[in-house]
């Protein structure tokens, strides 16, 4: 049998790190300068006296904690390290950071959490979080939330809560999925962001006649198409149906699900051909090079613009996915995946380091801490209410506006549903099949998806 060679699949995590890998280069020197004397004298971020002094003080005695991180690319790793250093500077607690390549980290998460994990580990909100909480592999941090809860909106609290009502997760940032475009291209051609589906189609048709590919698209990794499914389903059928579908209480064979694919089918002629063999990075290049007019993706698309040259990212803008004229328009729902930290219950040293680990969580909940990260990685925005948006670039400021205006927020299909269902031999394959055989019988197609779900 083959020796499976662990390889990194490009995921949104990879992407985020990549963004920082390039974008962060601009800002990191400033942070390094700011933090260079952190170890000796002043804490660079946050005033020690203000937030949560009790936990921090009691934790000083415990001395150290361990932290498993999947922020393995250079700049996100550095950005994470800056936050960790700020924590050590303020509390005197040493943090042993154990960084694992992110693809490996995700593939091995089950065995990692069952073995001898670190006290704190990086993870995602959504089903992926609730699953490990329900398996008893995560330590609840409800008491931490009692202290820091007021610094988060209700949506973040819901996204941090397990099936048993306890909180297990501490968010540090998120990022929106929206339709990205180049301002200069829109100005040159007199395009305006569409408000509804008809305008969207009209604009796409105009781009096509102008010799542009209206929608850039690359689905070689399998997950980017999920973003399109999510947003069409949210606009067409609303948040409740979408969540029910992800949880299995609604059926894929439902007429409403078929309607999603019908809408999508009408849009597919505007999409870039050959998507199944193209990475999202290559699709983003079509947008960078003004061959494509628009691109529905997470804000990490900015990485490709930062890499394209100085000032290119300033030309990048986005608009929320157009309304469909349904009753769900008011929800302004969107995918805005949250990343953050959890505590590993099986960690052998967690008992001794629990106070320190919770102090770490409290420190990470502060806006001033999260701003260290958002400065280094302009593809994301801080999760805390008291984060200072003044250091944000225009894209980040608009992202904050978009996310805070949303009445309903989802994580992303593969974070919201069973990973057994969402993988390469699952929903990824079904969506690729649909994109390439758009005229197939939707009854049979959705039946195939439902049958697969039923075997899980």
């Amino acid at each position, binding site marked *: 049998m083959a020796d499976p060679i662990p390889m990194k699949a490009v995921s949104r995590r990879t992407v985020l790190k990549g963004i920082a890998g390039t974008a962060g280069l601009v800002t990191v020197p400033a942070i390094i300068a700011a933090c260079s004397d952190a170890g000796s004298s002043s804490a660079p971020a946050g005033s020690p006296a203000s937030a949560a002094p009790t936990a921090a003080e009691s934790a000083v005695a415990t001395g150290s904690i361990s932290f498993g991180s999947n922020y393995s690319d250079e700049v996100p790793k550095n950005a994470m390290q800056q936050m960790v250093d700020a924590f050590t500077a303020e509390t005197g607690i040493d943090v042993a950071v154990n960084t694992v390549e992110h693809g490996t980290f995700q593939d091995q998460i089950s065995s990692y959490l069952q073995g001898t994990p670190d006290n704190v580990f990086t993870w995602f909100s959504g089903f992926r979080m609730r699953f490990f909480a329900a398996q008893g592999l995560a330590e609840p941090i409800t008491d931490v939330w009692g202290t820091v809860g007021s610094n988060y909106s209700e949506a973040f609290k819901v996204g941090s809560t397990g099936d048993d009502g306890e909180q297990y997760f501490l968010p540090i940032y998120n990022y929106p999925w929206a339709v990205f475009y180049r301002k200069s291209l829109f100005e040159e051609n007199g395009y305006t962001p569409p408000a509804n589906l008809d305008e969207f189609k009209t604009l796409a048709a105009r781009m096509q006649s102008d010799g542009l590919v209206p929608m850039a698209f690359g689905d070689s990794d*399998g997950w980017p198409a999920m973003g399109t499914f999510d947003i069409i389903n949210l606009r067409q059928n609303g948040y409740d149906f979408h969540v029910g579908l992800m949880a299995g209480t609604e059926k894929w064979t439902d007429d409403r699900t078929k309607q999603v694919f019908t809408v999508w089918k009408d849009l597919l002629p505007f999409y870039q051909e050959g998507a*199944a063999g193209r990475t999202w990075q290559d699709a983003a290049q079509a947008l960078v090079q003004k061959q494509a007019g628009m691109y529905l993706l997470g804000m990490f698309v900015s990485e490709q613009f930062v890499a394209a040259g100085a000032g290119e990212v300033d030309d990048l803008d986005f608009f929320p996915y157009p309304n469909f004229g349904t009753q769900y328009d008011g929800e302004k729902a969107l995918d805005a995946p949250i990343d953050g930290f959890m505590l590993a219950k099986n960690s052998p040293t967690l008992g001794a380091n629990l106070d320190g680990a919770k102090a770490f969580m409290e420190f990470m909940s502060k806006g001033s801490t999260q701003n260290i990260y958002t400065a280094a990685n302009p593809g994301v925005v801080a999760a805390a209410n008291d984060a200072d948006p003044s250091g944000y670039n225009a894209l980040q400021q608009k992202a904050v506006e978009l996310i805070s205006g949303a009445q309903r927020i989802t994580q992303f299909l593969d974070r919201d549903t069973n990973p057994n269902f969402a993988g390469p031999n699952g929903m990824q394959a079904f969506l690729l099949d649909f994109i390439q055989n758009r005229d197939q019988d939707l009854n049979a197609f959705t039946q195939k998806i439902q049958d697969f779900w039923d075997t899980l």
Partner: protein
Amino acid sequence: MGNPGTRSVAPALPGSTGGAGATAIPGRVRRRYSLLTGRDKLVLGLMVGVPLVLDIIFIWGPTIVSGFISLTNWNGIGSPFDAEFLGLKNYENLFTAYPFFWPALTHNIVWLAWLMLIATPIGMFLAVLLDREIRGTRFYQTIFYLPVVLSLAVIGIIWKLQYAPEQGFINNALGRTANDNLIDWLGNPDLNIWAALIATSWRHVGYIMVLYLAGLKAFDPALREAAKVDGASERQTFFRIVFPVMMPINVVIVVITTIEALRAFDIAYIINRGKNGLELLSTLITNNAISESNRLGFGSAIAVVLLVISIVPIIAFLVRMLRNDET
């Protein structure tokens, strides 16, 4: 050490696939003729026993546990013995409901057929050509062998870049990079397996070439000269003389090709993690069992199916090897 004397040697001990067991050991010599001292027996016992124990712990133990896990719905958390016991449900599911199993099996068979009928013969053909001491033979040997030193993972990355829709060399060379005429080598599910097979062959051909070339170098030139004297053409010499005489090497090559086809994994996994036309049994196992997905029971069922398929050529190979030893 082993002293078979004139007595014919008993067949190798059952289960002794480890190193020491395969050498001639008079395991069933009757006591009164025994030439072995107690110390010899102890040493031999250890030499057979230690590999046997290791073999059981590291090969057969996990295999049997895999077989057991395949009967459960174990999700990788906790003990597999606490998981729900499903009987043959996973297998039923696999053969009747799982939409990716039969495509994967078909792709493995296509993989095998391609390597056996196209890549391997090309490798043998190159070996025959290079054996003729044409000018620059060393240079060509190096060129063709070079891909073999690369791991398949690296080869996957190299070819993925070549096949990329807009940025890749192949589409650019063909001038097929526009939105309305590009060739989606890795995305089109009818095309990508052939693209992957070409990438695999790039390495496989060199591998077979070197193996066969080594055999040809050891070929007795007198046989070839005799054929020439008898007026045989080059073609006749190869097919009537060289090929039959090289039969042991041919068997090795067939077995290696079969194993390569069954363990095909790396390139498909690197291209797209084995989906959308590139499903293989090995990638299905990985995606179900060794990933964030938690279907270890189901993944083990696929692994058991692959094991059963793999055992057939292995047994054929072993039977052949053991028979050769006896003669």
